[in-house]
């Protein structure tokens, strides 16, 4: 039996020690926001935070986690950097298919928490492990900068009111 602290809650789970956290989250606990993309830490779709650090959960055996705090996409919005990143993601409409975006947002939120004003090289270093086949990279880069500075980087989306109302 392993006890995991996920998003501020404790989950006792009866799984083998070598089972990667990804599958415990998805198939045992039912937190499916964290995605499976490659299984070998090549794509970053499974990125979560372990004590605030971005890690690839597809290669992280649950037995090695101990009492470190796990944060997933479902709760990253409760952190200041996660909240800023998610808002910027909406403002410039980063997502396309969206499948990799949980991992992108987790990686970007960790970046912002440690490097409040990342430059392009910081973004490359932190985000190059996260693949996006829709290739939303231009907007990812812009959204990270926008989240950091609060300054609009690209054309901002309209939700509805007042400009996008239908009458």
């Amino acid at each position, binding site marked *: 039996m392993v006890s995991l602290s996920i998003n501020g809650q404790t989950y006792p789970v009866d*799984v*083998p020690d070598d*089972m*990667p956290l990804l*599958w415990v989250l*998805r*198939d*045992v606990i039912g937190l*499916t*926001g964290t*995605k*499976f*993309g*490659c*299984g*070998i830490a*090549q*794509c970053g779709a499974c990125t979560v935070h372990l004590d605030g650090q971005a890690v690839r959960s597809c290669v992280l055996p649950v037995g090695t986690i101990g009492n470190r705090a796990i944060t*997933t996409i*479902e709760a990253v*919005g409760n952190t200041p950097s996660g909240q800023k990143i*998610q808002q910027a993601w*909406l403002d410039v*409409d*980063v*997502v*396309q*298919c*969206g*499948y*990799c*975006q*949980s991992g992108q947002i987790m990686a970007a939120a960790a970046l912002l928490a440690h490097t409040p004003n990342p430059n392009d090289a910081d*973004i*490359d*270093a932190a*985000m*190059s*492990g*996260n*693949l996006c*086949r*829709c*290739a*939303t*990279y*231009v*907007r990812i*880069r812009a959204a990270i900068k926008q989240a950091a500075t609060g300054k609009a980087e690209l*054309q901002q*989306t*309209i*939700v*509805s*009111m007042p*400009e*996008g*109302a*239908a*009458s």
Partner: protein
Amino acid sequence: MSTELLSQASKQDEPVNPHRRHMLKASGLAIAFLWLGGTGTAAAMISARRQPGDTAAAMADGNPPFVPNAFIRIDSEGPVRLVMPTVEMGQGIYTGCCMLLAEELGVGLDQIKVEHSPASDELYGIPLLGGQITGGSTSTRGTWSVLREAGAVARSMLVSAAGVKWHVDPSTCTVERGVVHHVPSGRSLTFNQLAVDAGKLPMPDKVQLTDPKDFKLIGKPMRRVDSEDKIKGATQFGIDVRMPGMKVATVMACPTFNGKLASVDDKAARKIPGVVDVLRLDDAVAVVGEHFWAAKKGLEALVIDWNRGENANLTTQQLRDAIADTARNGKGIVARNDGDRPQGTVVQSEYQSPMLAHATMEPMNCTVHVTANQCEIWVGSQVPMRAVQEAAKITGLPEGKVLLHQQYLGGGFGRRLETDYVEQAVAFAKQVPYPLKVVWTREEDIRHDRMRPMYHDVISAVVDANGLPVWYGYRTSGGTVLARFAPGAMGKDGLDGDAVECVVELPYDIPKGHVEWMRHDMPPGIVVGWWRGVGPTHNLFVVESFIDELAHHAGKDPLEYRRSLVQKNARALGVLNLAAEKIGWGGQPLPARVGRGIALGEPFGSHVCAIVEVEVTPQGEVRLRKAVAAIDCGIAVNPGSIEAQIQGGLLFGLSAAMYSGLTLKNGAVEQSNFNDYRVLRINESPMVEVHRVINAEAPGGIGEVGTAIAAPALANAIFAATGVRLYKLPVDRDLLVQGPDALKSVVSATTHERRDIA
């Protein structure tokens, strides 16, 4: 035929005749799909007035009081529900469709709830494709008129219901954000309050569409309707489906094509905690677990003996040799023929394009529950009805007993136009009583893709004294996706229209041409599939690389050369000039080994020019510095989506051209995961600017346009930087090394670094 749409778009004051079908200009994949004759699919088209026809359909959609058509459901309370005829795989079509419906209906995008459609050709068939298919960049072109009309029909009925209630002329009522107002009397009723009454009214024969100058939503960069859930990890993709009693399987199919399962020893696998079952098909094995990890451990513990079959020794080189022979010597099916090649200077080249995997971020998966009299499927599919039909065949159930629950797609790119992964999941699931989720590993996903075919092309031109072409010749050889996917759509003499798309017609003023296709089927078992940009992606690489060669041959600047050939084509000239202006073509001189490449094309009913700027290191590494695209796709529904699709599509194409290619050894795909099937990462990705030509022409396709134009712009840029012409994709860095000394410096740098570490 596009003029009809155009006139409709520009003459909004004329009422829409509901019985007139708008034929759209077919291009790209859609050309291939125009097989309406003879197969009875003419009825399989979306309509602004057709409703779900039976009780089951009504119950499935919650039996709302107002269902004027298959796209709008209004209940007595809650948000307006909009049902999407196509599927969302990232291209932003849910947002586009919602904008078309909401614009005419009179609701904000913050007042709606989006729903996937059930599987139904009759209700959701796209005319260009003859069925409920999302592909070929046809969705906006296929829904632009009908969804606005559908919204207008609903609005008209809601307003009529209010008029009846208030005893006023409906024309004195207004609609705003889901509320009907009668200003003179100060009365208002919401759509919810009017739903029951509106549901009892007859359909209006004619409705008035909004004048484009009064559009509130269309043309604005509206936020995607699926963004909010996607940034929270709340969107349910196929792979996220969970239900009580469900087990998870992962599979391995025979590594060789057409190979079979000989035997499998599962004793060790069954001892692994969490392993539930080991299932067999004649060409694959699945291990079922309580969770994916148990299934994967179980799969690794199997001792499998494959009968590797007829392709056991197949290599890529054998395939390449055979296709090259066909391209040079095969008898072609003529797609264009303006007579014999004239006398003059001939320029000729041969180009090769590789097999490609789709590598959607969400690996193939499908959840199935087969019971005695029903088969339920949860899957993200670009072809829901085809999936239903295949599942019915496998289970022996009637199609009406196969219920498909559409999911969001974690990428499609053509991969999910196939049903192989659904068929396999159904075949496994019918062996067990519980709901079974089959999830492929990434390795399985790469090795058992329905890969983009390889091609070999011979292109030639006769040029005049100024180096301008007076005739062009094209001999393209490759496998055919269409002959399998829609045999009825094959053209005259068995021509695959997709194979010659964007080369039968060029944007350029070249008086004569001869285009032929040499069908070259792969060995049995190698099934080729649609890949983003389909025929145009491959043909534009060849044609636009060759136009660059001709410019070089003529000693002309590639921009000026193209300009001189598109003087009669205003839209092509427009995007060419816009892109050139935005990147500053011909301005400041570029540094050494930096170059810019142009590509111009007219795929999918749109007009596009891409200019890519690269730097090639002395060691042959290619760095993408910048890309500019100019797009003329006519009326823009959501300019934000257009920008995103051109940006992402272009990078998708650059990614493949830079890195991707599937190869075979001993009959099996050599690549397996993102470590050896390399794709573009953010640190390798350039800034991509997208500029739009604004006009009121009929909408063109968008989702595949950027991809189709990417590779030639890259190859031409590399030529400009190095003088090396790339006749083969992906980019071969060995060809781009500046000289022997360049590599020596790498070796010494590496050695030095090692010394430091030691």
